[in-house]
């Protein structure tokens, strides 16, 4: 692959987005977990729940700030590095980004300061409200970002305007209720909840292994496991929903994830494992399970799923149709209002394929000059590189099922075994901490790498979306971001570890005084000691 400005810009985007996404999932999930803990505190008045809220809240804060900081890059780099993209689809894509700021990010950022500084300034209920507003703000933020991203995968509610040379919105509600966006939203926030649950369980497990803060740690595991179990189920379910919607919106992505070169009679089998070979166009040594792919992708036994080779043939047809649109576009643009109705009608008829003609811009300045070989090559370009997708997808799904198993186990121990956790399980929980991050990053990779060669599926090729920058400029900023982000990451990890080691601030006197005061009420009828942890 030739390495030019397009590749360098992609590398920068991937780097900054993946880095941003190291902090986002934990923010999404921990904001909700902290709000849940504070709710328990306000309902029961037990000091330990306030201590939990403050402790996890502080770790949330250390993480949150880097999410905010690295999110700034995301908001501006479309304009910096992808200026043609910004011009071409800003009319649609910009709206959810701006609404995110207005509706979600303002809420979250305004109240997060009060969450940390308002303990003495607000009543309990007011402070709890603030905690929930932060959580709601974070999660709404994800909604709008995924509506924007969903539109890149499935560009609905918009059409091309030849007068302004860009896509323009025709129906806001179609953009809003894009099925891809909805599935992605729930899938992504659930992944965030799983991340936070694994984090809370892992850190708490470490305390239990060290014999520290066991009352706080056990309660945290219980909250984490209940919340995590529901979320892990939701991630896999909505991941499946994403696959289903991809089967009619992004057939190529799905076929590539599956390494499915030829169209198979319905219902298609699922390649559990295999070695996709892009050159030979086959997946070698595949172990397949019959019917499964057809069931996941089409939810029927009779609907056929097209393979990569057939999709390339489709793409070739659409390039030829796109060339007719491009030819008509040049006339319409030249004549403006005076354009003749027949040409206009031709343009309208083929404008949906205009983006396919742009695929030729990689080879020739004027797509109309393209040779047969170039058309064939451009059609071939619509196939993303298969093996990274194939493997990333399988690893992600494997991890997803792993989380369900882990959560199920901890939930069982917490609910039915008196919050008593065997040491090997605690060790496993500590080692599992990085796993949800890996799964989340793989998920991002599958979604965005699988969209290639498009920035907006079927509408705008990636190669055409970049700014007219020099390699030097982009190389400088890329180096700057790498350096900068590495330093920040080291500092963040250092602080995170420092504060985890230091542990929660537990006011023992306050807890004991409270326990003594409420001992009779909590002991209940059986006169058992309700304060003592069953496991102790």
């Amino acid at each position: 692959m030739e390495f030019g400005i397009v590749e360098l810009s992609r590398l920068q985007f991937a780097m900054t987005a993946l880095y941003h996404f190291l902090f986002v999932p934990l923010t999404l999930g921990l904001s909700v977990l902290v709000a849940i803990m504070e709710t328990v505190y306000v309902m029961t008045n037990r000091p330990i729940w306030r201590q939990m809220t403050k402790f996890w809240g502080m770790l949330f804060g250390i993480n949150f700030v880097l999410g905010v900081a690295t999110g700034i890059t995301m908001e501006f780099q479309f304009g910096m590095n992808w200026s043609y993209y910004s011009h071409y689809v800003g009319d649609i894509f910009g709206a959810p980004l701006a609404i995110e700021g207005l509706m979600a990010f303002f809420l979250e950022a305004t109240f997060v300061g009060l969450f940390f500084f308002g303990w003495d300034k607000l009543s309990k209920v007011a402070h709890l409200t603030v905690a929930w507003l932060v959580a709601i703000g974070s999660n709404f933020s994800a909604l709008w970002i995924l509506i924007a991203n969903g539109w890149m995968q499935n560009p609905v509610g918009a059409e091309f305007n030849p007068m302004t040379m860009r896509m323009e919105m025709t129906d806001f509600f179609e953009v809003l209720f894009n099925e891809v966006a909805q599935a992605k939203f729930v899938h992504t926030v659930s992944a965030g909840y799983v991340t936070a649950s694994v984090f809370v369980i892992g850190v708490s497990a470490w305390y239990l292994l060290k014999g520290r803060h066991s009352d706080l740690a056990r309660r945290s595991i219980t909250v984490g496991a209940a919340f995590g179990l529901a979320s892990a189920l939701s991630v896999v379910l909505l991941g499946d929903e994403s696959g289903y919607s991809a089967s009619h919106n992004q057939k190529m992505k799905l076929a590539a994830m599956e390494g499915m070169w030829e169209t198979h009679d319905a219902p298609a089998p699922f390649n559990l494992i295999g070695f996709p070979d892009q050159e030979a166009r086959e997946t070698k040594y595949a172990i397949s399970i019959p019917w499964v792919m057809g069931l996941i992708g089409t939810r029927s036994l009779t609907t056929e799923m097209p393979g990569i080779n057939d999709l390339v043939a489709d793409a070739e047809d659409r390039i030829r149709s796109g060339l007719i649109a491009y030819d008509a576009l040049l006339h319409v643009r030249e004549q403006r209002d005076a354009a003749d109705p027949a040409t206009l009608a031709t343009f309208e008829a083929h404008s949906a394929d205009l983006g396919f003609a742009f695929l030729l811009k990689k080879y020739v300045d004027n797509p109309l000059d393209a040779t047969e070989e170039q058309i064939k090559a451009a059609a071939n370009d619509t196939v993303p590189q298969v093996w990274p997708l194939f493997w990333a997808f399988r690893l992600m799904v494997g991890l997803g099922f792993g989380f369900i198993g882990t959560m199920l186990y901890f939930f069982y121990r917490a609910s039915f075994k008196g919050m008593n956790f065997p040491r090997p399980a605690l060790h496993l929980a500590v080692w599992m901490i990085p796993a949800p991050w890996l799964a989340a990053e793989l998920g991002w990779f599958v979604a965005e790498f699988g969209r290639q060669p498009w920035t907006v599926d079927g509408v705008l090729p990636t190669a055409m979306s970049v700014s007219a920058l020099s390699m030097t400029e982009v190389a400088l900023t890329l180096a700057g971001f790498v350096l900068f982000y590495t330093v920040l990451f080291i500092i963040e990890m250092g602080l995170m570890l420092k504060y985890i080691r230091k542990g929660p601030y537990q006011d023992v006197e306050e807890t004991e005084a409270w326990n003594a005061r409420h001992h009779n009420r909590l002991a209940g009828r059986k006169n058992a000691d309700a304060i003592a942890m069953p496991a102790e």
Partner: protein
Amino acid sequence: MILHDFMSYELLRVIWWGLLGVLLIGFALTDGFDMGVGALLPFVAKTDVERRVAINTVGPVWEGNQVWFILGGGAIFAAWPPLYAVSFSGFYLAMFVILAAFIVRPVAFKYRSKRDDPRWRNTWDWALFGSGAIPALLFGVAVGNVIQGVPFHFTDDLHTIYEGAWYMKFIGLLDPFSLLAGVVSFAMLVMHGGAWLTLKAEGVVQARARAIGSIAALVAVGAYVLAGLWMAVGIEGFRIVGDYLTNGPSNPLHFEVERTSSWLSAYADRPWIVVAPVLGILGGLLTFLGLRAGREVSTLLFSKMAILGVISSVGLTMFPFIMPSSSDPQSSLTVWNSSSSHLTLFIMLVVTAIFMPLILMYTAWVYKVLWGKVTEADVSENSNSVY
């Protein structure tokens, strides 16, 4: 959807031009004092406790304030996509520097007091200084460049092409007029930071903030007047010529633009806009007097008035131009050729009309909860929970 037809495209464009101003001013009024306090930090606060007092005056609100910046980016993207595309890629390296500052700043706030090591804290203090001072200067430099026009043109497909070598896109920004504009914005935000510290701090931090802030107020007014005189004699303006539509498609190539002798001819066409520079100058002078006299609440209001006047004077003088092109005037971005579609502008207006009042309400509530001075005792007593 047909509702949007009840508001003309032309009117929506003017409203969104106004909202662009509201966002920039909202950003300067709120995040402006964060940057000002950052730029003042090493000079108004010498000991660790003093520095923590200064930092904690903005500690609980900087996150919300910074959203004005992010929302500004998002709103320009949604309402003025060509402006978003041209300006951020055109000022590429300058934008990177600004982003770097806005990334470092949150981290510095949050992490500074999380370790006791004086070297750690001192490093973050200088990071706060840089991340306040550098953007404060660069925003003005960017405005100075926009006033003079930026060298870019569009191709037939509306790709943006910039003239000149890549390094000139950065070094070339630093011409004398733009640097003067940078001095205006830098001094103005330092003044604003000084006014904020006067309200929120006491004792020696407040005294130093008043002293430096009042000098900054004079510098801001002086540099602003100088820049105005320079524009009268040395900076060419732009105007649209020939027939054009104010409700036509957003395509710069459909317009004819030529250079004029000065932007200030706008004051002959629309004399009422003189209100903006008068507010700016008056606000600056009153801030100077307020800081000298040690008045707290009114000084901050005067400082806000100065910022409102200065920023709106730029927009009102250039109207309908938003980002003119010096190398190919025809490619200039104006209110009439660089907006989103009629429908998108309408939807975004509805959303803004719902959420902007809510934002202002809860922001006001948060400031009310946090009302009052940050004292050295506050910082010492809550050493673990504050910045």
